[in-house]
Structures are given as structure tokens and as C-alpha cells.
């Protein structure tokens, strides 16, 4: 509407172009940015795509003034600028939506927006002035945010809109969006994309960071792929397909589709009957949960983060007490079993927080490979460890699971996320379990390792393993699972066959809509 003088709806000038040239950033032992060129223009969404550790975040942190590059320059509308702190970048009109919400939970929306800004009343806060301006902005951009709401009471989709308001309030003409959809439902993602497209149409410039290929295609105009700190190439999104982008990311051809060969599903391995559980604060975290997992099937658990997935995994692993109901393994009542008893009953568990619950960071690869089994033969005779057997075991796992590590004695924390996850998977499968719980097995894991982990899970399925796959990645759940259970507020919203449901239908259930037709046993 302000075409004449090139103003944005917020009343501030546009950023016509922003260019990063030859950016070099070194960290001890790593070249995080290796002569990277990148640019974005007003009215376009430019995607930055790459694996974890490819250098996307580093590049954006340089743009936002959180890191200083060793070499290279940044040009704003053709003029070189220097950005030494977030304050500088905000002054230039560069805003950032971070991967994790940068909100103070116990404050209101207005307080979060006012944070760090000069007040029109000097020392005293001017929250009423701030609120009025927020309402003005939300109306212009269709954001629907209540300035007086406390953040902790807002849904994640609303919190994301607060982040956008915060950036706009500070006069952002260019917005860096660092994986903004990670915690949203498919519907919330759609709503957010509508907002982004409107912002671009109004003359904003957006940089969209993601590793979700379908989002790149749904939203962006151009895409730049980073790998190992280098810019591999920049292409028009319309000129390339998913396989092409994945190959650019990984550096080789990758298989994106998952084949689930038909298998005969047999006996029930794990059964939950009317399970209720409460957390330490007395809140109910699982409500009347009943399910069956059979030999030879992968059952996916879909849901937005924090809707009972973790308690469910922990109940089965023996880490979370239940207040009523029963847990059965192979028909035996294992309710209230301790973790070790569950392991002895045939359970393997890949925990969600792998660095925290899955490995001991400072222990070697070899030691981590026998966690939980260290007291058992053949690794121990009850008193002493048998180091030869332990070494052989680790060597075999490293080889069989293609784990990249300098040596067996390397502390596990020095491995990449994908390789750590492969070791955990190797350890858990080596125990020859009857039931496997895989919680977020590929979160933060590169495409190559994801491909490998999926192949192993599918191999277990053919061999008769009963697997529960908990994931927030809907694509993963749909591709890998035979049946899908949707959790919302600790309750089952539906149990569906994965071949008979769309992502949109799952999304509705994830948002709490119970579908009657969805209960298929």
C-alpha cells in the first residue's frame, strides 16, 4: 500500500538487498563458515538449507551480530556495514526468530516486547504505549496477539506470532527465521506460512532456515544449500526437486522413500491397559491409555511435543510410576517393574534426550556400548570387567553399524549426533530385544544417518521386533509406521492405519480433535 515511498506496513523503510560476501568463521578445530556468499532481496523468501553442523546457524549468528567473522563483508543496500552486536543488527532492521523461543515465560506479551527498549517515560515502563503499538501492528499483519496475555498461557503457535511481533516492533525489514516450524502442528505451520507470504508481499525480505524439504518447496523462492561450512549452490526453488536438494545437502544420492515390505504380524508383545499417570506436580500426564504392540509392527506415536509421549516411553521403560492400569509384556504383568527388570523382560529403550539419558558423555565409545550390560556375562564375571570381550563387542558394533569414530577409546561426546545415535541403536539392538521404544531416534540427525537408522528399524520389523516409534516429525511417523497412535494431553485421540490417513487429518487429531472413525484396531 506504500509503494510510492517503499515503506513497509510497519511504517519503516524496506531493505532492498542484503549481501554476505566471502564469510569465514573458524571455531577451534572447525571451519564453520568457509568463504560463504549469500544474499536476499526485498520481497523474496530465501531458504538456507543444510544438515546440522553445516553452518546455517553460524552464518545467521554472524548476520545477527552474535558472532564476528574472521573474513568477509556484509552489504546492506549495496553499502558495507559492520554488525558487532544484536543491537546493531536490530538498528539496521534485521530481526531474528530463533529456533527456541526467546520469550520470558512468566511475563506478558507487552513486557516481552518492551524488554530492552527505551521507555517513553524514562525509567518507568510504558506498557500501555507498547500495547497500543502491538495492537496496531497485529492488525496490519493479521497476527492476532493479546498484549496482556502471559506467555506461559499461550499455545506454541501464538508464541511464534509474539516473536514475529517482537521483531516487527523493533522495525525489522528483514527477518531471519531459524527453523520456525519445529514445534508447530501442521495447521499452525499453514497459518504461519500465510503470514510469511503476506509479509513478503508487503516488501519484507525473509531468510528461512530449515532441513524440512517440503517446507522449502511450500514457501521459498530461492534456496542456498550449505554443507560442511561451504555454500554448495543457490538455485530457484522451482527449478529443483526434493531428491536434487537432498543430494546437494548430503553430497551423494539419498533414498527419501521408505519401503515397508509386508510382514506377518503375530503375537502381542506389549500391552497397556487403562494406564493413568501423574507427574510430581500432581498433574495427570497419561489418561486411560490402552494399546497393543505386536511382533513385526512399528507403531508410531504422533503428537505435539509435551502431550504425553515422554511419559508413555518412561512408563514402559519403568522410569515413570503409574497410578492405575496395567502394563503387560508377552502376557506377563510387568506393572511397576524397575528399569532393570524391564530390560531383563526384553525391553530396549532409545531415549529422547540422547546426550542426557542415552550415553555418559565423558565415557568412551567402548564403555557406552555396554551401559546397562556391564554387570552381565560375558562383559563381566560379576566382579571384574572382561576388557577383551568389551573391546571386541565395541569393534563389532562400530563395524556393523558403520559408526564413524576416531577410536573405541574416544569420549562419546566427540562424535556427531548421528554417530552417537547409531551407537545407542546398536547397543539397544545388540541386546536382541522383544520390544523397542525409539523416542525421537532421528531428531537432529543428518539425512545419511537417518536413512541408516530407519533401515535398521525396518530390519528389526522384518525380524519380528515390536517397535514403538515416538516422533514429532510427521513425515517420519507416516513413512515408518504400520499404525499411528495420536496423543493429545496424555490421551489417545485415535489409532489409525498409516496408509489410510493424511497429514492434515493427523494434524487435526494432534490439535485435540478426536475422530470417531479413527479408532481402528
Amino acid at each position: 500500500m506504500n509503494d510510492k515511498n517503499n515503506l513497509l506496513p510497519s511504517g519503516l523503510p524496506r531493505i532492498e538487498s542484503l549481501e554476505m560476501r566471502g564469510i569465514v568463521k573458524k571455531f577451534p578445530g572447525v571451519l564453520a563458515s568457509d568463504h560463504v556468499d549469500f544474499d536476499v532481496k526485498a520481497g523474496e523468501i530465501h531458504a538456507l538449507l543444510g544438515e546440522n553442523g553445516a553452518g546455517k546457524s553460524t552464518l545467521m549468528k554472524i548476520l545477527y551480530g552474535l558472532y564476528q567473522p574472521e573474513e568477509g563483508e556484509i552489504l546492506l543496500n549495496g553499502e558495507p556495514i559492520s554488525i558487532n552486536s544484536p543491537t546493531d543488527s536490530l538498528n539496521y532492521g534485521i530481526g531474528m526468530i530463533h529456533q527456541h523461543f526467546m520469550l520470558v515465560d512468566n511475563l506478558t506479551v507487552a513486557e516481552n516486547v518492551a524488554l530492552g527498549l527505551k521507555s517513553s517515560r524514562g525509567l518507568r515502563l510504558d506498557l500501555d504505549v507498547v500495547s497500543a503499538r502491538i495492537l496496531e501492528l497485529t492488525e496490519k499483519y493479521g497476527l492476532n496477539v493479546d498484549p496482556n496475555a502471559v506467555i506461559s498461557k499461550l499455545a506454541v503457535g501464538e508464541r511464534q506470532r509474539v516473536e514475529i511481533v517482537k521483531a516487527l516492533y523493533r522495525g525489522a525489514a528483514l527477518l531471519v527465521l531459524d527453523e520456525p516450524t519445529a514445534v508447530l502442528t501442521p495447521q499452525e505451520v499453514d497459518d504461519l506460512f500465510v503470514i510469511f507470504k503476506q509479509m513478503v508481499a508487503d516488501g519484507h525480505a525473509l531468510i528461512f532456515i530449515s532441513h524440512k524439504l517440503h517446507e522449502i518447496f511450500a514457501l521459498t523462492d530461492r534456496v542456498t544449500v550449505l554443507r560442511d561450512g561451504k555454500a554448495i549452490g543457490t538455485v530457484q526453488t522451482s527449478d529443483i526437486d526434493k531428491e536434487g536438494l537432498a543430494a546437494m545437502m548430503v553430497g551423494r544420492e539419498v533414498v527419501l522413500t521408505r519401503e515397508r515390505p509386508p510382514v506377518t504380524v503375530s503375537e502381542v508383545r506389549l500391552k497397556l491397559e487403562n494406564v493413568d499417570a501423574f507427574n510430581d506436580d500432581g498433574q495427570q500426564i497419561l489418561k486411560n491409555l490402552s494399546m497393543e504392540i505386536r511382533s513385526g509392527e512399528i507403531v508410531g506415536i504422533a503428537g505435539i511435543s509435551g502431550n504425553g509421549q515422554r511419559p508413555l516411553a518412561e512408563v514402559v521403560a519403568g522410569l515413570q510410576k503409574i497410578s492405575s492400569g496395567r502394563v503387560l509384556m508377552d502376557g506377563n504383568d510387568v506393572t511397576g517393574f524397575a528399569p532393570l527388570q524391564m530390560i531383563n523382560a526384553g525391553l530396549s529403550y532409545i531415549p529422547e534426550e540422547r546426550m542426557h539419558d542415552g550415553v555418559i558423555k565423558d565415557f568412551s565409545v567402548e564403555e557406552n556400548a555396554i551401559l546397562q550390560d556391564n554387570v552381565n556375562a560375558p562383559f563381566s564375571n560379576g566382579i571384574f570387567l572382561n576388557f577383551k570381550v568389551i573391546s571386541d563387542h565395541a569393534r563389532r558394533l562400530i563395524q556393523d553399524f558403520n559408526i564413524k569414530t576416531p577410536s573405541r577409546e574416544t569420549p562419546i561426546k566427540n562424535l556427531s549426533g548421528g554417530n552417537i545415535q547409531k551407537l545407542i541403536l546398536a547397543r539397544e539392538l545388540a541386546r536382541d530385544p522383544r520390544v523397542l521404544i525409539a523416542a525421537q531416534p532421528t531428531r537432529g540427525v543428518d539425512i545419511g544417518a537417518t536413512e541408516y537408522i530407519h533401515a535398521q528399524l525396518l530390519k528389526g520389523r522384518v525380524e519380528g521386533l515390536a517397535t514403538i516409534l515416538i516422533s514429532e516429525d510427521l513425515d517420519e511417523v507416516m513413512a515408518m509406521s504400520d499404525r499411528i497412535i495420536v496423543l493429545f494431553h496424555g490421551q489417545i485421540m485415535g489409532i489409525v492405519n498409516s496408509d489410510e490417513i493424511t497429514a492434515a487429518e493427523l494434524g487435526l487429531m494432534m490439535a485435540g480433535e478426536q475422530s470417531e472413525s479413527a479408532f481402528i484396531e
Partner: protein
Amino acid sequence: MSENLTMAAIILGILHSGIRLATPYLFASIGETISQRAGVLNLGVEGIMLMGAFFGFYATMQTDNPWIGLLAALIVGAMMGLLMAIASITFQAQQGISGIGLFMFGAGVSSLLFKTMVGNVVSVNGFSELTFCVSDMLCLSEIPVLGDIFFSHSIVTYAAFALVPFAAWMLNETTWGLNVRSVGQNPEAVDSLGVSVTAVRYAAVMVGSALAGIAGASLSISLLGLFQENMTNGMGFIAVALVYFGSWKPRGVLLGALLFSTINALQLWVQVLDLNIPSDVAVMLPYLLTIIALALPFRRSMQPAALTKPFKRGEN
């Protein structure tokens, strides 16, 4: 009849002492509240109070002006806070440990300086108790009951009570207060908006410690008018506990301080009156109360989320 009178006098005495004794607790725990709201647990309050008590006392002794004593205590307190801030914010030391170090440093240095610079217990002319005389004939302190309880304290005690609404206003209504509250809750968010987490935390710790210094001086130059080694006798630690008791809110801290000091006064009277309760039990009362209060689980949810966590950019 006379028994009733004695009883009334005792109750009056307890209430008067309760308000009086709340003074050091209020300064110290309001200061600690500010520090903790910014995410820094300062366990060194006891040591800072001892330093404040000594320097307040010494400066008063030298100049005969308690205001200069108060200023000295404030500056020494802030300097102690600077030490704490350097250790726990710049060098990211464990807050609990550096606080205990600060306590031992303050206790040791104040004792040493007292021995070398003063030597024996002497009294100084500190702040005197006000009488609120409107004219020669009419003094508010002379009003029966009310005068005793409310209108016969020193200016320092009134300042301690005035600090409560002022601190609440600072925390809730000013831009600096918003920074403090945010830094204690989610420092990453503050950093991402271009506000220096380090600067906000330094300021909060130093303001809090300056108040702890004044708390010490309120003992030595207002309540007692003398200095003794280790004269705070655990008050600094109680002040830290009062912050938890008060759910990190100045008003809650006020309630805790009053409850605590009143029970303390009660305990003193139990000892004086030689009642049929062993004095050890009476002495235990305030501490028992602290433990019970801290065990109440609902208070913990009010705790600043980033309390005791050093902030380092880029580490989530």
C-alpha cells in the same frame, strides 16, 4: 491485675522488638531478592553484613557521624558484591561455592580488622530512636501502645520498611526491573534483544550486596551501637531463606521478616522471663519455622528459572 499489666507490657515489648529486629532482615533479604531475581544466588550475605557492620561502626567511631558510617557500609557492601559478581558472573564460578567463600572472607576480614584497629568492645553514638515530637508537649512516641510499637524507632528502621514498596516498584514498574526479572528467567531472550546480561546481573548483585552492607550497619550503628566479632550470628543466611519464604517478592519477604523477627523477640522474652520452656527450644523456634517454610513445595514454582545458572552465549 498486675499480672495482666505485666502480660500487656511483655506483648508490647515483643511487638516493639519485632519491628526493630526486622530491620537487618529487611535490608539483607530485599537485597538478596533483587540479586536472585536476576538469577544470582548470593550466599555471601552473612559475610557482607559483617563487613558492613564493621565499616559502618568504624567510620561512625572515627567521624562521629552515623550517616558516614552508613555510606561506608553501602560502599563496602557494593565492593563485596563486585567480588561475588566477578567470580560468579565473569568467571562463571559455582554460585553456592563462591558465596560461601565470600561469607568466610567477610567473617575473617571483619574479625581481623576489628582486632587490629579497635581491639576491645566499645560503643558508638549511632542513629538514635526518633520521638516524632510535634511540639514540646506532644510526641507521637508518647502515645500509649501505638507510640511504643510504631513511633519509637530509628530512621534506619523506617528506611528498611520504606524499602519494601520501593523495591517492588523498581522490580515491577521500571525498565531496569524488567531487565532484572527477565535475566533471572531467560537470559538468552535478553541477550537476543541486545541487552547485556552481564551488566544487568552485575548491577543487581552489587545493589543487593550494598543493601546487605547496610543491613550489617543497621545492627552495629542503629540497633546496638557496637561491633562484635560474628555479631550477625547467622542473620545473613536467614535472610537468604526469607527470600525463598517470600517467594521472591518484596511483600512476601516483608511478611517473612516480620514473622521471623517477632518470633525471635518472643524467644528472647521466653529466655528473659524464665518460663517453663527450656531456652534451647526457644532459640530453635525461628530456625524450625524457616525449615517448615522452605519445605512447602508450592513456593518452588515461583523460583526464577535461571537462578544459579551462569549465562554463556550460544549454550542451550
